[in-house]
C-alpha cells in the first residue's frame, strides 16, 4: 500500500477506525441480549476515540506522544477464531476484539515498515502502538475476567 502524503495516510487510518466503529455498532444492534449490546457499544466508543485522536493529528494537535513498545501478552494467539453472532457472550466478544485489535496492529506495523517517508513511518508506528495498547486492555480484561483460575 502506498500513500502520497501524510494526510492521505491519516485519512486511510480514519477510514479504518470508522469501519471498526461501524462494525461494533452494527454488532451491538444485532445482539439478542441487552448487556452484550452495551459491551459492543463501548467497543465502538473506543474506536471513536481513536478516530478523534487521528483527526487531532490532522488538525495539528497530536494528542499522542511517542510510546515505548507495548508488551504483547499473546493471550489470544492460540485461541480459535470467533465468528460474530447474535448470541455471543462476553468471553467470545473479548476474543473477537483481541483478535481484531491484533490484526489492526499488524496492519499498521506493516504500513510503518513499508513507509519510505520517515514522518509516515513514525505515524504508522504510533498508530500501531495505539492498537497494541488497545489490545492489551482487552487482554488484561480477558485475563482478569476469564483466566482468574488459570
Amino acid at each position, binding site marked *: 500500500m502506498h500513500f502520497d502524503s501524510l494526510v492521505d495516510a491519516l485519512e486511510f487510518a480514519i477510514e479504518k477506525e470508522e469501519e471498526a466503529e461501524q462494525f461494533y455498532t452494527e454488532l451491538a444492534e444485532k445482539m439478542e441480549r441487552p448487556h452484550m449490546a452495551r459491551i459492543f457499544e463501548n467497543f465502538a466508543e473506543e474506536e471513536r476515540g481513536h478516530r478523534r485522536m487521528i483527526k487531532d493529528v490532522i488538525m495539528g494537535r497530536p494528542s499522542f506522544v511517542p510510546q515505548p513498545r507495548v508488551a504483547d501478552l*499473546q493471550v489470544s*494467539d492460540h485461541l480459535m477464531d470467533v465468528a460474530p453472532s447474535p448470541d455471543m457472550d462476553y468471553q467470545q466478544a473479548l476474543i473477537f476484539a483481541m483478535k481484531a485489535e491484533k490484526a489492526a496492529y499488524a496492519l499498521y506495523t506493516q504500513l510503518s515498515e513499508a513507509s519510505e517517508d520517515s514522518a509516515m513511518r513514525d505515524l504508522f508506528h504510533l498508530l500501531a502502538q495505539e492498537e497494541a495498547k488497545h489490545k492489551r486492555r482487552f487482554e488484561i480484561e480477558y485475563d482478569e475476567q476469564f483466566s482468574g*483460575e488459570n
Partner: protein
Amino acid sequence: MAEKKEKKPLDLNRRQMPKQPPEVRKYNFNEVAFGYPEDVAVEEAKRCIMCKKARCVQNCPVEIDIPAFIQAVADRNFAEGIRIIKQKNCLPAICGRVCPQEDQCEKTCTLVKKEGQLAIGRLERFLADWEARQGHVEMPDIPEWTGKNVAVVGGGPAGLTVAGDLILRGHRVTIFEALHRLGGVLVYGIPEFRLPKEIVNREVEYLKRLGVEVHTDFVVGKTRTIDSLLEEYDAIFVGSGAGLPWFMNIPGENLNGVYSANEYLTRLNLMKGYLFPTYHTPIKAHRRVAVIGGGNVAMDCARSALRLGAESRIIYRRSREELPARFEEVENAEEEGVIFDFLTLPLRYIGDENGWVKEMVIQKMELGEPDDSGRRRPVPIEGSEETWPVDAVVCAIGNSPNPLIGTTTPGLKLGKKGNIEADEETGMTSREKIWAGGDIVTGAATVILAMGAGRKAANSIHDYLMGGNGHGNGADDGSGANTASDANAGADQNTT
C-alpha cells in the same frame, strides 16, 4: 494502687486436626480430616486472647460473634457455643469445612502476626459436629401462615438460606431445583472427601420437615418462566448459581475425554462415582489426567482423578504463589501426590483416530515485567512448546451464570457476564417481586457469601411481604436475621 493483672503467656501452638494419612486417603473418597477431639478443641479455644476489638468478627462475612463462641468452647459449654454461631450462620457444619477462613476471620486474628492464628474454622466445625452427635432436633414453632407464597429458584446455599429464613417467618416457600437433588454445588461440586453428602442431606431434610415444599427436576426458564411463576407467587428469589463452565477456546476441546470440571465432578458426585469401586464409576478409567486451572475446583478435580487411580496433574499458567485455591487444599493435594506444573499453558489437544484426546501441546510461561497495577502477568517463552501424553483433560478455569433465567425474564437487568444485577444490601433486582443472590449475582464465589446474600434477601422479601418497601429490617418483628436463625438452631442436627 490496683493490682497488676497477670498476663497469660501466649500459646502459639495451633492445634493440628487429625487427618487420614495421604497414602491411605488417596485411595478412598472418605472425608480427609476427622475434626478435633473434644479435649483438643478446648485446648485450642483456650489459646484465644479475647481481643477487645475482635477483628476476626469484622472479617467474617456474616459477623459471627467469634470470641463468644470460642469462650463457650473453652468453658465446655458446647450447646451455648453452637447457639451463638447459629444466630448468624445456619450451616456451620458446612462453613466450618469449606469456608476460606485463612482469608477471612483467621487472617485478622491478632495471633496471625506470630503465625499462631486461632483455628476458628476448625472450632466451628467441632461445635456443629458435636451438635449433630447429640442426635436430637428441636423443631421450632412455625408461625401462622401470613397468606404469602414465595418461590425460590435453585437449591444451593443461597436458596436454602432464603427458604429456611422465610418459612420461619410464616410464609409458604417452594424451592424449584433443576437437578434431582437439593444442595447445589455442595452436592454436585464439592467432593465427598471434603464435604460428606450426609451433612448437606441433613440440612435439606430439616428444611423439608419445616414444611418447605420442593420441586426437583424443574428448570425455571424452561419448565415454567419466572413470569409464569409470578402469577402464583408473591415474591421470587433467584439463587441459580454459576453453573456454566468456561473453556479456553483452544483447538481440540471438543475431543472425547475433555471434560468441564462441572461435568467431571457431577458425574462423580451425583452418579455415585465416589463409591468406586462399589459403584462402577460413570467416568471412564483414565491413566493420565491433566486438570487445567489452579482454584478450589481444580484441586477437587485433580484429587478426585487421583482417587480413581490416575496420575493426576494440575496445569497452571502462573506460579505457586498465585494459586487461588485454599492453601490447605493445595497442601493436601501435594501430600497425596498430585503433580503441579506451574507457568504452563495448554495450547491445543490432539486426538486419536477415534476422537479421544491422546496428547496436549503446552507452552512454558514466565512472569513479565510488572504492569501499571504492579502485577506481573505470565508471558509465553518463545520455543518452549512440548507435547505431553494425556487421556483425559478437565478444564477448571471458571464458570459463569447460566443465561437461561436472564434471557427468559424480560426487564431483568444483567451485568457483562450475564450475571443478574442486584442490590448488595437487599438483593432486589431491576424487576419488582424478584430478588437474587449468591453466585448468580457475584459470579463464582463462596458458600458463606451466597448464604449471606440469601439472608439479606430474605429480610428484604419479608419486609416487602409485610407491606414495607423491602429496605426495612423485617417489618413486623424488627429483629431481622436473628429471629429466623435462632429458631433455626436445629438445622445442623441429626434428624433422628
